[in-house]
C-alpha cells in the first residue's frame, strides 16, 4: 500500500528517489527494521545487564576484602577504632590493600597513624599482614611522610623519612604474617 504524496514530495524532495525522500510520517511496513532495532536493543540491554551484575559481584568481593582488612588492622593493633582509611592498589590492580588508623584515640588523621599492608586471600575473615609503616598526624599517605617501615614496606622502600619526626610516639614494628 502506498501513501499519498505530501507537499514535501514536490520540488527538490520530489526529484529524490523514493527511499531518500523526506516523509511526514513513517511508512507502514517497517516491521523488519523495527524488529532489527528491537533485537539490537535487547542484546545491548542484556550485555549492559551482565556487565552491571558482574561489576556489583566484583565490588561485593572487594567490600568483603576491605572488611577483612579492617578486622585484621583492629586485631593486630589492638585498637577497636571505626574510622579507618583504606586504599586499594589501583595502579597494580593486585589485591594488596593499605589500611591506616590512629595509634591513639582522636579524629580521623588527627593522631599519628599506623598503616598495614595486607595481601592474600580472606581466611577466617582476616588477611595476611605483609608489612606496614607510620604516618605523622594530619599528613597525607605519601612516601615523603612515611617512617618506621617494617616487613614488605621496608623491602619495597615505601618510607621517605629515615627517623620518626620529633615528638612522635613509639613506632614499633608490628607482627607480620597471618593473625
Amino acid at each position: 500500500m502506498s501513501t499519498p504524496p505530501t507537499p514535501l514530495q514536490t520540488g527538490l524532495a520530489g526529484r529524490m528517489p523514493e527511499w531518500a525522500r523526506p516523509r511526514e510520517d513513517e511508512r507502514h511496513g517497517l516491521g523488519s527494521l523495527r524488529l532489527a532495532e528491537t533485537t539490537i536493543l535487547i542484546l545491548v540491554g542484556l550485555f549492559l545487564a551482565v556487565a552491571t551484575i558482574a561489576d556489583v559481584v566484583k565490588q561485593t568481593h572487594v567490600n568483603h576484602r576491605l572488611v577483612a582488612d579492617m578486622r585484621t588492622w583492629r586485631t593486630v593493633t589492638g585498637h577497636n577504632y571505626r574510622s579507618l582509611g583504606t586504599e586499594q592498589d589501583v595502579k597494580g590492580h593486585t589485591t594488596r590493600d593499605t589500611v591506616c588508623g590512629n595509634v591513639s584515640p582522636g579524629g580521623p588523621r588527627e593522631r599519628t597513624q599506623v598503616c598495614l599492608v595486607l595481601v592474600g586471600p580472606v581466611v577466617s575473615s582476616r588477611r595476611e599482614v605483609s608489612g606496614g609503616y607510620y604516618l605523622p598526624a594530619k599528613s597525607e599517605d605519601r612516601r615523603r611522610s612515611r617512617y618506621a617501615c617494617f616487613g614488605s614496606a621496608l623491602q619495597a622502600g615505601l618510607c621517605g623519612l629515615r627517623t620518626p619526626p620529633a615528638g612522635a610516639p613509639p613506632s614499633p614494628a608490628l607482627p607480620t604474617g597471618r593473625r
Partner: protein
Amino acid sequence: MQAGRVWLRALAGALAVVMLAATLEIVLDGAVGHSPLIPKSPHIAAWLDGVGERLGFRVFLIALLAYVGAYACMLLLARRVSARFAIALTIALQLIVFAGPILLSTDVFSYIAYARMGVVHGINPYIHGPIAIASDPVYHDVGKDWKLVATAYGPLYTLISYPLAWLGVTGALWGMKLMALLAGAGTLALTWRCARLRQLDPKLALLVVGVNPLWVIYGLGGAHNDLIMTLLMMGAVSLTLARREAYAGAAVIAAALVKATGIVLLPFMLLSTRRLAPLLGAVVAGLACALVAFLVFGIHGVDVVAALNRDAAFVSTDSFPTEIAHLLGKPGVFPVDHDLLKAGLVLIVVHLLWRTWRGYDWVAASGWTLLAISVTSTWLLAWYTLWSLPLAAVSRDRRLLVATLSVQALFILHQLSPLLAPVS
C-alpha cells in the same frame, strides 16, 4: 467490577504510602547530617533534626529499593488511578525532598561557588576553578574533585545563578533548591501538556517523570541544574506542538546554554519540521546569548566545545563503559575506548537522523540520542539518566521509555554492593 476497582485503588494508595515513607526516611535521616550520603553543607534542614537517625548506606538502599518497587507497580496501575491522585502524590514527593537537606551530590555547591566567583569576587568562573576563592565560605563544601575545575555549564545558567550569590551561601542554597523545584514542576506541567497534545495518557507521563525515584531523590534532592535543561527541552517540544517553531528553536538553544547536551534536540527538530522558523529562532537566540556571554565572560564563556572535550575525558565507576571494561578484564577505560564510544555514538545519531528524515518521531529520536550519550559516556551520574525521561514519557515509541527505565534500573542495581557487603 466495583470490588476490583476498590482493590486497585487501595493498592495504589499503599504504593503511594511506600514511596512517601521511603522519601521521608531518606530526608529525615539525611537531615541529621554526618552521613557519607549527605554532602557537608550549611545545616539547612536543622528544623527536621531529632526525628531521624544518621543516614547509612543500608537504610538508604533499602528505602531506595522499596521506592523503586512501588514506582514500578505504580506505573502498571497508572491508567487506573485518578489524575488528582497522580498530581497529589507528585506534589507531596517534591515538597518532602524540597524541605530536606541536599542529597547525594556536592554539585550545587559548585554552582554557588561559580556564582560567588563572578558576583562577589569578580573572578571569571570560565577561567578559574573554585580554588580561586579558597577563603569563601562555600569553598569547603565544593566537591574535592571540582575545586580546580572551571565551570562546564552554559553561560545562560551561570547568568541565572548570579543573582543568588548575593543571598549568602545558605540563601543561595535555598535559592538553588527553589529553582530546581520550580524547573522540575515546569517540566512536569509541560510533560502533561505534551502527552495530552500527542494523545498519550498524561497521568502515565506525569507519574513516569514526577514520581521517578532518580528524579525525586537524586535530581531534585541534589538541586541539579539538569532540571532546568529538561524544562527548556520540554518547552521546545511543547512549542513545536503548538506550531510556534521559532520559539521552539530558541528554547533548544536556551537548554543548550544551560547544559550543552540540550542541543541534541535541534537537528531532529529541524529534520522533522523542515521549516526555516526553528532554525531562525535558534540562530537569533544563539547569537544573542553568545554576544551576552562574550560581553560578560569573554571568549571562554562561549567556548563550549573546550569544556565538553575536557569533561568527556572524565571516568566514573558507575559508567557503563567502565563496567564493560571490568567485564573484559581491563582495569578501566583507555583513550582508545573513548574513540570507539564516540564512533558508536556517531553511528547511532546518523541512524536516528536518517529515521527522522523518513518520518520517525523526532521527540523519540532526541530521547534516544540523550540516552545513548548517557550510556556511552565514561562519566555517568544518576541525573544524566533523567535527560531522556520526559521525552520518553511523551514519545510515541514506547521502546524508549522501557530502555530509559531499564538504564535507570541498572544504575540503581550498580549502587547495591554496600547493601550486599557493608564496609565498616
